[in-house]
Each structure stands twice: as structure tokens, then as C-alpha cells.
């Protein structure tokens, strides 16, 4: 297995390190696992584009020594669709947060899935808008405390993976930062799938979310993600827990392929 120093030498912009992320933030683990998946697939990093929106999660594209776009709030999937349509040879990875993807960019997400364009979307779900001070986001669980829900949150949250499954994404997986080995495998699969692959990662936000929700030590946070999740294979026995694993893997025609077919058919 490749070591962290090799990953660091090969893929990281050295001037940007150490990261600005808080202690205990899981976003660095997602950066690490994504780079490992790319390395294991032996992909050419110069033929990849990393697109991100606004938020803590969206800092990740600027740490990678490759082409990247740090776009407007909620629009990374729209920008990624444009890049893929202009040059189908590129591999696109989108880093987006829960507020970015489900809140401001909710429409872009469902229409990206509907078009089934070949991009890999990695959603870092930390249950709140961490960068702006911990406001409630569309994925904030019921009865949890945030800056804008000081008594408790009574709005029903989005289950992003279920949303992606219902919209018809060919590959949907959900893991947490406590399952890094499985996450590498899923990102590898997501990069190989021809079509829209949606990978949700539950990452902790100790500074804004967990501080207000009674878990104030890193060990407790790490264990919460282990104890409150259940693999999809055993989900029926424990229905109260968050279902993780590879949730959907279906075949579907991809947008750029259909576009090529259309061009060939019309230009005859």
C-alpha cells in the first residue's frame, strides 16, 4: 500500500499544507481516500478536473496538484457538466458539501442525475453549514441543535443517498470517516462507473455541530459514526441506524455517449 508521504509528494500542493481545516474535521480523510483511489486506479492526474463549490468541503480541490475549479455556491455539478460536455476525455470529481449540494444546489444535483453525465460526486455531509458558523442545513437531523435551531431542529432532513437513488443515479454509496478502507473501494468503483456516481461521506464537524450536540471529544465523535451506522446487508435487523454501504449499482446510458450517437445520426 502506498504511504502518506508518497501521496503527499505526488498529489498535494505543498504550499497549501497543513490544511486550514479544524482539528477533528473529517474532510482531510476524504481528500486522502480520494487520492488513494486515484493512485490505485493509476489514473493520470493531468487528465482529471476537481470541481468544488463553497464551504469547508470545497476547500479540497485547492489542495490537489491538478486542474481544479472553485465555483459559486451550489453550482459545482453545473460547472462539471459543462467541462464533461466540452471534453468527454476528462475525469471529473466534484467535492461538495451538504449545504452546497442539497441546499443551494439541490436542483443541479437532481438534474445532473437525470442527465446521467459521467462525473463522480463526493458529498461531504457534516449536518450543518460549518464554514459560516453552524447554521441548520437540509440534512440536519431531527432534534439536533445548531445556531439557527437553538431549541431543536423540527424540520425533516433530506436523506441524500435515498434522494440520489430515487432520482436514478447508477452508482450510489454512503460511508463515514470511520470506514476509510471501504470508502477507498467505493470511490474506485465510482470513478470506474460510466455515468453519474454519487458517494456520500458522513464527516464530523466538531467545531460547529458536535460541540452543540453533546459529543465534545474526538473519540466520542469517531465512535458515534461507527455505532450509529449499519451496513446495508444487515439494515433490516437495525432499522433505527443510518444505512451505509453500496446502495445502488445499475446500468444506464450515459449523456456524452448519447450525445455522440446523436451527432453521428444527424450528420449522416
Amino acid at each position, binding site marked *: 500500500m502506498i504511504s502518506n508521504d508518497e501521496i503527499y509528494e505526488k498529489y*498535494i500542493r505543498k504550499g497549501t499544507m497543513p490544511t486550514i481545516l479544524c482539528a477533528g474535521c473529517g474532510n*482531510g480523510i476524504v481528500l486522502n481516500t480520494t487520492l488513494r483511489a486515484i493512485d490505485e486506479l493509476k489514473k493520470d492526474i493531468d487528465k482529471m478536473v476537481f470541481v468544488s463549490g463553497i464551504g469547508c468541503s470545497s476547500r479540497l480541490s485547492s489542495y490537489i496538484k491538478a486542474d481544479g475549479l472553485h465555483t459559486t455556491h451550489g453550482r459545482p455539478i453545473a460547472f462539471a457538466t459543462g467541462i464533461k460536455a466540452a471534453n468527454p476525455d476528462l475525469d471529473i470529481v466534484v467535492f461538495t458539501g451538504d449545504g452546497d449540494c442539497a441546499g443551494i444546489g439541490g436542483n443541479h444535483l437532481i438534474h445532473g442525475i437525470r442527465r446521467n453525465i459521467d462525473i463522480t460526486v463526493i458529498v461531504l455531509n457534516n449536518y450543518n453549514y460549518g464554514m459560516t458558523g453552524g447554521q441548520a442545513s437540509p440534512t440536519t437531523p431531527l432534534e439536533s441543535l445548531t445556531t439557527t435551531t437553538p431549541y431543536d431542529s423540527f424540520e425533516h432532513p433530506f436523506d441524500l443517498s435515498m434522494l440520489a437513488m430515487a432520482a436514478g443515479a447508477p452508482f450510489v454509496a454512503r460511508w463515514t470517516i470511520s470506514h476509510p478502507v471501504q470508502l477507498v473501494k467505493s470511490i474506485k468503483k465510482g470513478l470506474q462507473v460510466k455515468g453519474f456516481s454519487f458517494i456520500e461521506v458522513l464527516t464530523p464537524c466538531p467545531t460547529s455541530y458536535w460541540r452543540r450536540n453533546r459529543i465534545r471529544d474526538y*473519540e466520542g465523535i469517531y465512535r458515534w459514526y461507527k455505532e450509529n451506522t449499519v451496513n446495508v446487508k444487515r439494515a433490516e435487523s437495525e432499522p433505527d441506524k443510518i444505512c451505509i454501504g453500496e446502495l445502488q449499482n445499475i446500468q444506464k446510458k450515459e449523456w456524452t455517449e448519447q450525445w455522440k450517437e446523436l451527432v453521428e445520426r444527424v450528420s449522416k
Partner: protein
Amino acid sequence: MITIKENYCKGCGYCIIACPTKALKRSNKINSRGIEIPIVEEEKCNKCHICELSCPDFAINVEEE
């Protein structure tokens, strides 16, 4: 061999919790930012690399001899 980049560690301790053989431990060793960095017991390590994967800051490096 396990090495820890002291100036990169933010002291979250995810490596300590993730390690299945308890080769990493909390210590009183403090880096330049005032953060307690973990210490390594080399003989317990079974080179599973899970600490590397669990480190959000690329601070741990495991090399197989």
C-alpha cells in the same frame, strides 16, 4: 517504521482510536502549536495502514521495511 510529522498533527487522535493493535498512544509530548501529539510503539504495529487512512492531515507515515 511509523513517523509523525509533528508540525502537521492537530491532535484529533483518530489514529489512536482507529489502530486495531493500540500501537499509538496519547502522550505529553507537545508540538510548536501546543498540541499533544501521539507516541508510537513500533513493536505493536502490524502495518495495516489504517492510521494513515484515518489521519486528516497527512501527518502519519507508515513504511514497510
